[in-house]
């Protein structure tokens, strides 16, 4: 392989190489430094005159004397069945002291788009055991449902609880977990690892760790390696894979860093104009394929800078993913776990996975009614602050109390409390029963007579 020593410029994570033979776009590049270390990179721009290489590791040590080798192929990821139970670096190298991965296949990391026609619609309800997710923001297999959080909130606990408890009721198939950490601290990583080990989840997990002190540019490939692995496990081996990506905010920061180094015209808040397309190339790698056994379900986690849901990162994410679970600071301050605010949360695929044959026939209507009643009660809190409780009508007072009750009983649950969907829905009915029956305008009479605790008691008594 030819080695070039024609570096013209090094700027941040980018190396500009001159006078090369034709080099392919997106090709994998090895850079050999004077002390013999090999660093990896990828071609970002190629022409007769100059080739721009993005280096995935620190550019420290790279100089005019470094050799550049163009490998002639795009980045490929070796994958194999024995990846389960392994811990890899953000660049895909084993860091658990174990042997190298025995590759059964080498796959492109960019991942081609699934033909929309080949996709099967997600319809299998995943029970996470968390009422605010199962009841009002249901997750289904093949969905991408991010957790929008902010610094200082227990999003990691929520993600872990999902990873621990997620199952499809009535199905014996197990989830495999692919966990990709991007720029999280060692401490956070240890927290995840300890929980995986404790619950035995590690045996059926593949972990990619790019920690806070690892090169930022490596974060660009970490989620792609993780998803390539997930797709292999799902579509080649037939596993149902749950992918947890944390923290996507760090990924976007890395993207911005490269954009700035390339002197691109920045978009909103300095993030590159192609961030939507770039994020889509990650988030869209979830789903089910007709006639293929496995599935990829994604739970990306991102921290909203300054709790701002309109920040470009959560904003663009929300446009690609199928909803969002929003972790809320006020609930957290009230000491409620899991502090999920159902009002801005949403699962776009919920209706595909609930109802008769999936969960229970009353699910949709109960969920709508809970939502509406809580929203109304929550709105009234603002009013109470101005006029005081006494000025409220009886009806308003009822909804106000409902909102408190909802948070205290429906939202609040234990870190290890695994509620079945029946328990969640029955709990919902118990809360709705505190309101007069004629206020339940979103539920048809038939369902009320079948599930309302009042009629149930009558039926039993």
């Amino acid at each position: 392989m030819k080695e070039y020593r024609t570096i013209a410029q090094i700027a941040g994570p980018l190396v500009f190489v001159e006078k090369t033979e034709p080099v392919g776009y997106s090709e994998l590049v090895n850079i050999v430094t004077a002390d013999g270390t090999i660093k990896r990179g990828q071609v970002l721009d190629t022409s007769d005159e100059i080739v721009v290489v993005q280096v995935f590791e620190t550019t420290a040590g790279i100089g005019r004397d470094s050799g550049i080798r163009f490998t002639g192929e795009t980045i490929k990821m070796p994958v194999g069945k024995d990846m389960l139970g392994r811990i890899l670096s953000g660049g895909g190298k084993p860091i658990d002291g174990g042997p190298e991965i025995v590759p059964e296949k080498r796959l492109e990391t960019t991942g081609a788009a699934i033909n929309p026609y080949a996709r099967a619609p997600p319809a299998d309800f995943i029970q996470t055991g968390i009422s605010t997710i199962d009841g009002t923001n249901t997750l289904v297999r093949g969905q991408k449902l991010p957790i929008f959080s902010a610094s200082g909130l227990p999003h990691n606990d929520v993600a872990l609880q999902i990873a621990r408890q997620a199952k499809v009721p009535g199905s014996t198939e197990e989830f495999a977990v692919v966990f990709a950490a991007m720029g999280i601290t060692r401490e956070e990583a240890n927290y995840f690892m300890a929980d995986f080990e404790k619950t035995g989840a590690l045996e059926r997990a593949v972990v990619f760790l790019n920690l806070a002190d690892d090169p930022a540019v490596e974060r660009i490939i970490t989620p792609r390696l993780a998803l390539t692995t997930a797709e292999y496990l799902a579509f080649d081996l037939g596993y149902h894979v749950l992918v947890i990506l944390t923290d996507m905010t760090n990924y976007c920061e890395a993207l911005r860093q490269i954009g700035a180094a390339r002197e691109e015209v920045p978009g909103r808040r300095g993030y590159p104009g192609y961030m939507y397309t770039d994020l889509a190339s990650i988030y869209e790698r979830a789903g089910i394929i007709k006639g293929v056994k496995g599935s990829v379900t994604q739970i990306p986690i991102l921290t909203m800078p300054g709790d701002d849901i309109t920040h470009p990162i959560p904003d663009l994410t929300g446009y690609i993913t199928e909803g969002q679970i929003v972790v809320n600071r006020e609930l957290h301050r009230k000491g409620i776990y899991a502090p999920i605010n159902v009002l801005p949360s949403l699962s776009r695929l919920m209706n595909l996975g609930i109802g008769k044959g999936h969960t229970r026939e009353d699910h949709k209507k109960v969920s709508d009614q809970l939502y509406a009643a809580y929203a109304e009660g929550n709105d009234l809190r603002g009013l109470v602050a101005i006029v005081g409780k006494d000025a409220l009508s009886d009806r308003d007072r009822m909804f106000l109390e409902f909102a408190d009750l909802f948070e205290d009983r429906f939202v609040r649950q234990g870190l290890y409390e695994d509620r079945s969907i029946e328990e969640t829905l029955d709990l919902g009915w118990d809360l709705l029963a505190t309101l007069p029956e004629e206020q339940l305008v979103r539920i048809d009479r038939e369902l009320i007579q079948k599930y309302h605790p009042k009629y149930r008691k009558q039926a039993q008594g």
Partner: protein
Amino acid sequence: MKKGKENGAQGALKRISGPVVTAVGLDAHMYDVVKVGNEELMGEVIKIQGENTIIQVYEDTAGIRPGEPVENTGLSLAVELGPGLLTSIYDGIQRPLEVLVDKMGNFIERGVSAPGLSHEKKWEFVPTMKAGDDVKAGDILGTVQETNIVHKVMVPPRSKGGKIKKISGGSFTVDETICVLEDGTEIAMLQRWPVRVPRPVREKLNPDIPLITGQRILDGLFPIAKGGTAAIPGPFGSGKTVTQQQLAKWSDAEIVVYIGCGERGNEMTEVLTEFPELEDPKTGRPLMERTVLIANTSNMPVAAREASVYTGITIAEYFRDMGYDVSLMADSTSRWAEAMREISSRLEEMPGEEGYPAYLAARLSEFYERAGRVVNLNETSGSVSVIGAVSPPGGDFSEPVTQNTLRIVKVFWALDAKLSQRRHFPAINWLNSYSLYLDALNEWYDREVSPEWNPLRSWAMGVLQKEAELQEIVQLVGSDALPDEEQVTIEVARMIREIFLQQNAYDAVDTFCPMSKQYDMMKAIKHYADLARTAQVGGATPQQVVGIKSKNELVQIKFTKDYEPALDKIRKDMEAEFDAMRAA
């Protein structure tokens, strides 16, 4: 059409930067389609600069090197039009996705081309013209029963026309000649049309017929005319997609073209699986039989996303030319604009607002201007109604795509995340939405629904507006402090919102509400309001008036198919209750 391959010189690649590549030594015209690299990836010329030709490539360019060949086809980006369009599912450049699955499996690989129409399938052509007839461009030569829709085979719009020498019925592929003119011109069923050029029409008509959608807030309060343009902006999670799908399913256009532009794969799949299963309420046949779907998901190549809206509207215009009413949904035009922005930034063009290219407004208005109700070249009349979704980042309506769209479209359905959080669906804000077609459509409503409808709508809008004002007072002093009359206004507004405006897309009955039922429902609410007013004049307290029990049954009317008897009963019960109140 432009000259053929003989003039299309061969060039070589010079630079590759993502979806934008530069070639040298290529003799090309703007928007010529070129084949890029050894794998012959499809691309389109978007800029010519000195000896450099800049090309946007519709497929992934990984691995392509400088020096590889580029070949000019000499043709513009065009779609194939003819029998076989209906029921098809295409990507942004009219490659049938179903065929692609057969050719390259479950994932979209590159370098595979597939024609938009099947060139093998035979169609039964029935001529409606005969030898000796004079025809001109656009004239209908005959028909093909494509699905339950009759496909009209037309003389291509750029043909000179002439006298028919020979025309024959029978079984033909789209390429075979079905008609020969005296001057020797052979006409086949297949037409090719460049997507960036509008198909010609004789005359544009005024928008005075509404597109009935069966959605109460749309038909009732903010109607769109056939051939009109509407925008649905909405922050994410406000139910935009569901609203658009409802429109596709229920609007009374004969043909539906749905463009999933930069959309989610799973949601596209929902459309792809739901449409074939959906029954057309008018024919009992699958809805898919009158639908063309274009799916270019967010992770499919960005240049093909840019082309997808043009592909869609060209297909829509083709059906309009046959005399059909077509509704076109573009979801989302913001993704389309972002594709423009991405390509523009790769071209290192001077950016306009927020990095969008300076020609953003021009492109948007060119696109929406292709909507309209028209008299076609063949004297039939047809329409293309365009409903574009915009996705303003952070729900900020002041951003360039939303602002430029609002300057063009006549209807605005303001989706509101607050409403959807309260599970008020469709989450269309009745205070911020508008329709500029109301005046043009008044006459139609008078004639087809009832002369009472227009005053009824004004009354409802008035109540809702009044409620908004009153709510501000309530926020400050509580509802008890309002005058008696206004307390009832608040209740009536609540009824309009919960009974009339809220509509459940997932309920078998409520998902489509005919105009006559909308009228009956609104009239019943008004009836209550009138009774309440009379009772109050007679000295009834707001509590008594609001406490009328039978009015609570009105909400059930939505979910009842044969609702008239039930509605009659409620009306009588309400009157009886008010009578009883007066007696007491």
